[in-house]
């Protein structure tokens, strides 16, 4: 038999005035298992707590029920109290007779029966309580950052700056991401590489950051504090130890191909660095273009000219296995492919380009050295039409959401256009101009008033050819009249979308993503950089459209979360987690998909019923991943899955006690 002590708090008159505590005491004394009942004016006061501790010892209590305020208020307090008396802190139950009874009912007449029910229920639950223990796991104080755009760079620098080691994995030959492709940046118009390059250099020079470019994470196992990653280092065919970055190889290489960095608007060599400020500033051979690889061993010009003897055609991929305590995912975004808009030419007009292509055409390091020339004939465009929300806010053909950054970068483009070509005219077709940010509206004003861009409110219906002339047709919805422009160049503000492989990345790393492929934060307001997998954090546009200031802020926040984790030597795990009774588990796996945290795995049990060796698959909860929601325990039809602290037995007992 259990020895339950019941403690009734007056809360001054808060409870006492609405509940006849003497009657509650009488009833409680009649309950089975209850061996001691006591009242106190202020249970949470130090003397009140002392009463409880004394009673536990004097009466040998092994379960405690406190009828007082909401457990959300003092559960922790009283757990500590009972622990102080040598009892397991989870052998405590609270009956919420204040918030759920005395405060909401006018008098003792109404309040007392409710209080009686609540106390009886708490006692019933307490009888079913079992001692629970937290467990502890060590923390590998090293972070893995995936993606080397501005988000990944910032997160890596912040974590390293707090004294921890970081491995930064970038799949391209250089870090920098999209920001490196930009010309100038709103709302201040600093040159993108001027503010990005120093950070890239800092990454390469920080002794705590190990930079792995041309690399990808193949798999991630483990849990918070103890992840294990397999990282593939793709063969670059260049020995980085020997290479001095002199550039002789790429200057001499005779083979060219359209460059990814310039979005195909310019060319690069088969051995290349993507752009002059690339980090690392050592080259990579693209085996799909290189003659040596494509034409069995021909060419080798680079090898001939490399004085350092760094060219290594035989190099193979390497696999690295490393342990990490936390992961920051910063894999960035892509632009929606406007070829899906047949009405805008299906990507077939060379002078209908994406906004990112325009960035390359404007950039001093771009394919046209910063002279804005249109792709078809190299002429300087005078009438440039910008179309907003291409693919964005389009449930029919694109994505339903607003891409958030395009209103601002188009204002930037309009200003830049005027700067580069003073006798040009920008026409911007928009539906709404969205500029919620510090100095953003002012920046938009600059585009319209100072740069004289013509903003026309209306979504363009069609871009078509009249002879060889591109014609853009829209409605000026403010006038209610159709308008058309003969355009020299059309720039489409294509939607920000998730990277094509985002779902695979999320699956590989073990967290969720939304319908659009953006990674899902644990809570939209209160946990915006956490994923629902403990220890994995998000930074930048992989989570949703973001501009640079927001990306950098989020990366800093993700870094802070990592550092907060690393500040502890051991992680305490929540004791109220799910537990499988392997005896009853049928191995059906119903519980697994329901867990929001992928905390349930399977293990093989070996048994010897009657001497025969039998193996059987059963579910197993990873207590480091489990958050204790209990969904699995309901999904389980065999009753094998239970939730500690809110067990089937406890809840069942509560229901029965209530319905007595």
């Amino acid at each position, binding site marked *: 038999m259990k020895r339950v002590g019941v403690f009734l708090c007056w809360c001054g008159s808060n409870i006492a005035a609405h509940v006849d505590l003497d009657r509650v005491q009488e009833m409680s004394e009649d309950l089975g298992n209850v061996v001691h009942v006591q009242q106190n004016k202020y249970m949470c006061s130090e003397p009140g707590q002392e009463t409880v501790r004394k009673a536990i010892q004097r009466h040998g209590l092994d379960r405690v029920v406190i009828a007082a305020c909401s457990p959300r208020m003092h559960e922790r307090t009283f757990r500590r109290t009972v622990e102080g008396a040598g009892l397991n802190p989870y052998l405590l139950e609270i009956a919420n007779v204040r918030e759920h009874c005395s405060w909401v009912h006018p008098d003792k007449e109404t309040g007392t029966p409710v209080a009686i029910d609540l106390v009886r229920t708490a006692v019933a639950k307490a009888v079913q309580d079992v001692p629970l223990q937290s467990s502890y796991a060590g923390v590998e104080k090293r972070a893995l950052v995936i993606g080397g755009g501005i988000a990944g760079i910032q997160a890596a620098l912040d974590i390293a700056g707090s004294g921890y080691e970081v491995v930064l994995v970038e799949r391209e030959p250089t870090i920098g991401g999209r920001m490196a492709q930009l010309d100038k940046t709103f709302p201040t118009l600093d040159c993108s590489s001027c503010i990005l390059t120093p950070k890239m250099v800092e990454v390469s020079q920080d002794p705590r950051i190990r930079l792995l470019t041309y690399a990808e994470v193949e798999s991630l196992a483990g849990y918070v504090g103890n992840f294990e990653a397999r990282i593939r280092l793709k063969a670059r065919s260049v020995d980085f130890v020997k290479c001095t970055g002199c550039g002789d190889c790429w200057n001499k290489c005779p083979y060219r191909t359209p460059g990814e960095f310039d979005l195909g608007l310019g060319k690069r060599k088969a051995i290349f660095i993507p752009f002059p400020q690339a980090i690392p500033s050592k080259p990579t051979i693209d085996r799909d273009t290189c003659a040596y690889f494509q034409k069995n061993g021909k060419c080798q010009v680079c090898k001939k000219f490399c004085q350092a003897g760094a060219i290594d055609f035989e190099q193979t991929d390497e696999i690295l296995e490393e342990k990490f305590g936390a992961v920051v995912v910063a894999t960035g975004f892509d632009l929606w492919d406007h070829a899906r*808009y*047949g*009405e805008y030419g*299906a990507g*077939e007009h060379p002078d209908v380009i994406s906004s990112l292509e325009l960035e390359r055409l404007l950039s001093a390091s771009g394919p046209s050295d910063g002279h804005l020339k249109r792709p078809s004939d190299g002429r300087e465009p005078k009438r440039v039409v910008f179309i907003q929300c291409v693919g964005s806010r389009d449930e029919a053909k694109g994505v339903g959401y607003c891409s958030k950054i395009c209103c601002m970068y188009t204002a930037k483009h309009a200003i830049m256009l005027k700067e580069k070509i003073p006798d040009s005219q920008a026409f911007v077709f928009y539906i709404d101009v969205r500029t919620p940010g510090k100095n953003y509206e002012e920046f938009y004003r600059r585009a319209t008033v100072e740069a004289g861009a013509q903003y026309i409110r209306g979504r363009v219906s069609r871009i*078509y*050819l*009249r*002879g060889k002339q591109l014609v853009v047709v829209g409605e000026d919805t403010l006038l209610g009249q159709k308008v058309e422009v003969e355009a020299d160049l059309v720039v489409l503000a294509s939607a920000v979308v998730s990277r094509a492989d985002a779902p695979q990345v999320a699956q590989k790393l073990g967290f969720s993503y939304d319908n659009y492929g953006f990674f899902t934060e644990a809570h939209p307001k209160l946990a915006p950089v956490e994923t629902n997998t403990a220890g994995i954090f998000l930074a930048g546009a992989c989570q949703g459209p973001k501009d640079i200031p927001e990306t950098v802020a989020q990366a800093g926040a993700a870094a802070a979360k990592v550092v907060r984790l690393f500040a502890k030597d051991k992680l305490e795990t929540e004791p109220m987690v799910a537990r499988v009774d392997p005896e009853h588990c049928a191995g059906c796996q119903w519980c697994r998909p329901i867990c929001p945290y992928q905390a349930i795995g399977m293990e093989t049990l070996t048994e010897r019923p009657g001497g025969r060796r039998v193996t059987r698959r059963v579910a197993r909860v990873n207590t480091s991943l489990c958050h204790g929601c209990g969904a699995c325990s309901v999904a389980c039809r065999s009753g094998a899955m239970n939730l500690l602290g809110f067990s089937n037995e406890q809840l069942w007992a509560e229901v029965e006690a209530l319905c007595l």
Partner: protein
Amino acid sequence: MKVAYYPGCSSHGSAADYDRSARVVAGALGLGLVEVPDWNCCGASSAHALDHQLALDLAGRNLALAAQLDLGGVVTPCAACYSRLNRAHQWLGEDRRRWLDLAARVERPYRDVGKPRSLLELVVGAIGLPAVAERVRRPLQGLKVAAYYGCLMLRPPEVARFDDPENPRSMDDLLRTLGANPVRWGHKTECCGASLSVSRPELVRKLVDDILDNAAAAGAECLATACPMCQANLEQRRSADRTMPAYYFTDLAGLAFGFSPVDLGIAMHLDSSLHPLLSQGQGGDRP
């Protein structure tokens, strides 16, 4: 191959020329057109403007009649009929109870025998361009044609479910197979305004002129259409100074197959002038 053929009202009237070339070309491609018995007007242009249910029922009756022929889905040469038949077909497909309701109204059972197709769809799809290529006797070498699809054969895409609604290619591909050079132009799918042709001819004139001008700017020498309403409109509602001929795609196919303009009913066009490329050896070596 035999198919149920829904000619549409114009084929028995102002588009008798189209009906002719359609039958000639179908025959040449080994396609038997079996006219749907006792078909009625599909209601295009007007029924849906005034009565939703009537529009569905008029088209639905034809579908029920066609189903009785047991030849698979119905084919029609007219884009407007095509659109109405498809709308009815889809509406019926959404709920089987509608089959019985329709059957009661038209006093015939309805059965789903597949998506109604346009003649063009059938030629480029079921028959296929290789079969067309085999039949070509006199390629239309060098003829610059603007393939004009108009609106209803492609739109709305959920109804038409044929080709790309913004950048259709089927007729261009067909013309290329016939040896012609389809031009890249901007008004392939602009509406010609046929439904307003009688009531607001002056509006329609602007639409037609725009289409002809855009084709001319792209260097086209003639237009190819796949709809009697388009063809009639393009011919009848143009300003006097526009001279570009508008042919049915079946006219051009027939000429490439070696048939004469008379066989094909081209002589019945308002502008029956033939491009020099087309008139060469006209009426000569019949296959």
